[in-house]
C-alpha cells in the first residue's frame, strides 16, 4: 500500500483467479448495458461506507483491501471473445484511491455527492468494477465514496458489503466468501438449473405472444430535454396506509403497491391489461444469499384488469397482483441469452419485439419496515397534506419507457417514476404518483371499484401530446 497527499494505492491478493462464462445475473446486466448504450451509467451503483470510529487511513485502506480480497466480484473484469462474454477474476492487482478533503461540507454528504459523480462515468469491461475515494476531514478518514459497476453488485450485494465493512472495522478477519460468481456459473450449467430456465421460458412464451407490442398506444411526441426524467413523491400517509391494507387483505405491502401501479398504468394507457417487468432480487438459492455479485433478473408480470372492471375492486386487484407476481417471480430463473433469443424469435413472428420497458422496482420488497406499526392511530388522510413531489433526476438516453420505484425514507414512503417524456409528460407522471397515494389512502375507508380508479386517482387515459 502506498499513500501520497492526494491518493493511495491498494494492492490486493485474493485466494484464486480464473475465467468463466457469465452468470445469469451478469448476462442480464451485460445485455442491459448494451441496450442502455451511452446512458448505461444509469445502471452504475453509488454507495457510501462510513468510517464508524476513529481509524487512521492505513486501517481504512486495509479494510478496503480485505473487502476486495474476500469478494471475487470486486476484482473481476470482463471480456467479449468470439464465443461469448466471460468474467475474469484477478487474483492480485492494484486499485488507486483518491483522497478528498471535506472542508466546510459534512463528510457523509460529500461522500454521497462524490459517489454519485463517480457513477456518471461508464465502466469499460476491462476496468476494475469499482471506483473509490476516501473522504478525509481534519486528517481523519470519515467515509469511503464508491461507485460500482452493476456487473459486480446489485442492491442486495451493497447491503452485504456494508455488513462486511462493519465487521472489518470491528477488527474481525473475514475469510474468502464461500460462494462466488464463478461457482454460480458452474451451478447454472447443471441440469436442474437448465430445467428451471426452460420452464421459465415456457412461462414467458405465451405472454410474449399475447402482450401489446407497445407500452403506450400513442406515437411519441416532442420530448423534454433531457428526454428521460424522474419525479418523486415523499408521503408519510402512504407508508402507513399500505401497511394497514396489506394486513386487512392478507397480502404483502409490495403487492398493494404493485397493484396500485398496475391499475394506474392501465388507466393512463387505456388498457385492460397491465404488463411490466418486475425487478427481482432473485436471491432464492441459499448459496446466493451471501454472494456479492449481481443476481437480479426481470420477472414478466401480466395482470388482466378486464374481468375486474365489471364489479370487483382494488382489493381484488391486490390479491390478483399477488398471485400473478408469485408466478412471475417463480419463473425468473433463466439464461438471459436463451430468453433474448426467444424474444427475438417472437419479434420475427409478430413483426417486432414487444416493448417490455415498463418496470416495477420495489427496492425493499419483503424487508420493508411496517410504518403502520409506528403510527397505529394516525389520521392518514390528514397526513396527505404533508406529501411533497419533486423532480429528482434526468438522463439524455436510457432504455426505459416508464419505471416505478419504491423505497422508504425515515418515517415515510418514497415513490419515484422515471418516464420517457416522448410518451408521457412530466405533469402526468406527477399525477400518477399522487393518484397512487389517493387510491391507497381512499381504500382505507371505502371499496374502490376498478372502474372508479381514474376518478379516485385524478387521472385519465393519455393518448399523446395535444396538438
Amino acid at each position, binding site marked *: 500500500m502506498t499513500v501520497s497527499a492526494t491518493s493511495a494505492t491498494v494492492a490486493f491478493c485474493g485466494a484464486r483467479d480464473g475465467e468463466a462464462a457469465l452468470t445469469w445475473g451478469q448476462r442480464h446486466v451485460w445485455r442491459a448495458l448494451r441496450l442502455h448504450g451511452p446512458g448505461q451509467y444509469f445502471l452504475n451503483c453509488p454507495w457510501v461506507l462510513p468510517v464508524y470510529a476513529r481509524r487512521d487511513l492505513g486501517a481504512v485502506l486495509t479494510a478496503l483491501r480485505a473487502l476486495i480480497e474476500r469478494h471475487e466480484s470486486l476484482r473481476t473484469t470482463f471480456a467479449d471473445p468470439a464465443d461469448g462474454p466471460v468474467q475474469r477474476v484477478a487474483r492480485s492487482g492494484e486499485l488507486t484511491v483518491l483522497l478528498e478533503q471535506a472542508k466546510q461540507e459534512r463528510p457523509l454528504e460529500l461522500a454521497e455527492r462524490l459517489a454519485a459523480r463517480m457513477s456518471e462515468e461508464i465502466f469499460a469491461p476491462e476496468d476494475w468494477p469499482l471506483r473509490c475515494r476516501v473522504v478525509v476531514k481534519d486528517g481523519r478518514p470519515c467515509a469511503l465514496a464508491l461507485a460500482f459497476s452493476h456487473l459486480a453488485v446489485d442492491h442486495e450485494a451493497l447491503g452485504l458489503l456494508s455488513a462486511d465493512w462493519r465487521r472489518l472495522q470491528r477488527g474481525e478477519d473475514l475469510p474468502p466468501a464461500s460462494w462466488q460468481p464463478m461457482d454460480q456459473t458452474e451451478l447454472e450449467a447443471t441440469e436442474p438449473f437448465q430445467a428451471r430456465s426452460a420452464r421459465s421460458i415456457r412461462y414467458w412464451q405465451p405472454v410474449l405472444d399475447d402482450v401489446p407490442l407497445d407500452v403506450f398506444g400513442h406515437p411519441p411526441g416532442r420530448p423534454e430535454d433531457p428526454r428521460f426524467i424522474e419525479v418523486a413523491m415523499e408521503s408519510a400517509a402512504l407508508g402507513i396506509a399500505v401497511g394497514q391494507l396489506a394486513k386487512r387483505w392478507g397480502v404483502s405491502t409490495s403487492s398493494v403497491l404493485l397493484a396500485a401501479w398496475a391499475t394506474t398504468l392501465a388507466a393512463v394507457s387505456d388498457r385492460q391489461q397491465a404488463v411490466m417487468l418486475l425487478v427481482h432480487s432473485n436471491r432464492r438459492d441459499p448459496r446466493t444469499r451471501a454472494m456479492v455479485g449481481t443476481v437480479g433478473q426481470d420477472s414478466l408480470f401480466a395482470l388482466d384488469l378486464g374481468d375486474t372492471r365489471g364489479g370487483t375492486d382494488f382489493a381484488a386487484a391486490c390479491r390478483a397482483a399477488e398471485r400473478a407476481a408469485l408466478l412471475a*417471480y417463480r419463473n425468473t430463473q433463466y439464461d438471459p441469452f436463451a430468453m433474448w433469443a426467444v424474444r427475438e424469435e417472437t419479434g420475427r413472428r409478430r413483426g417486432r419485439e414487444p416493448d417490455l420497458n415498463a418496470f416495477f422496482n420495489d427496492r425493499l420488497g*419483503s424487508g420493508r419496515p411496517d410504518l403502520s406499526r409506528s403510527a397505529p392511530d394516525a389520521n392518514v388522510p390528514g397526513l396527505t397534506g404533508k406529501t411533497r413531489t419533486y423532480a429528482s433526476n434526468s438522463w439524455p438516453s436510457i432504455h426505459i419507457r416508464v419505471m416505478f420505484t419504491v423505497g422508504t425514507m425515515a418515517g415515510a414512503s418514497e415513490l419515484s417514476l422515471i418516464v420517457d417524456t416522448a410518451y408521457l409528460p412530466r405533469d402526468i407522471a406527477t399525477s400518477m404518483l399522487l393518484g397512487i397515494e389517493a387510491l391507497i389512502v381512499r381504500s382505507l375507508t371505502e371499496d374502490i371499484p376498478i372502474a372508479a380508479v381514474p376518478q379516485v386517482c385524478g387521472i385519465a387515459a393519455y393518448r399523446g401530446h395535444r396538438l
Partner: protein
Amino acid sequence: MTAPAGDVRSMLADMIADASDGEVSAAQALAGDHSLTALGLTSLALIRLIDAIEDTFGVDLGPDMLSYDRFDALASHLAELLSA
C-alpha cells in the same frame, strides 16, 4: 425418492424453517394452526421453499403456488406427487 409420510412432513417443516431464515419454526409449521403467510413466510421465502422441495424430491409442484399456503395442503400435495 420415497420416504414415509411422517418423515416427509418433518423434512418439509425443516425446509420451511430454512427458507424463512427461521422466521417460521418447524414446530409452528407442523402445528398447522395458521397459514404459512400468516406465520410470516414471505413471497421470496415461499419461492425458496418451492425450489428446495423440487430439488430435494425431484417433483414439479405446478403453478398454483397460493394453494401451498397451508402446511397440510402442501404436505398432502407433495405426498400425492411422491406416490404417483
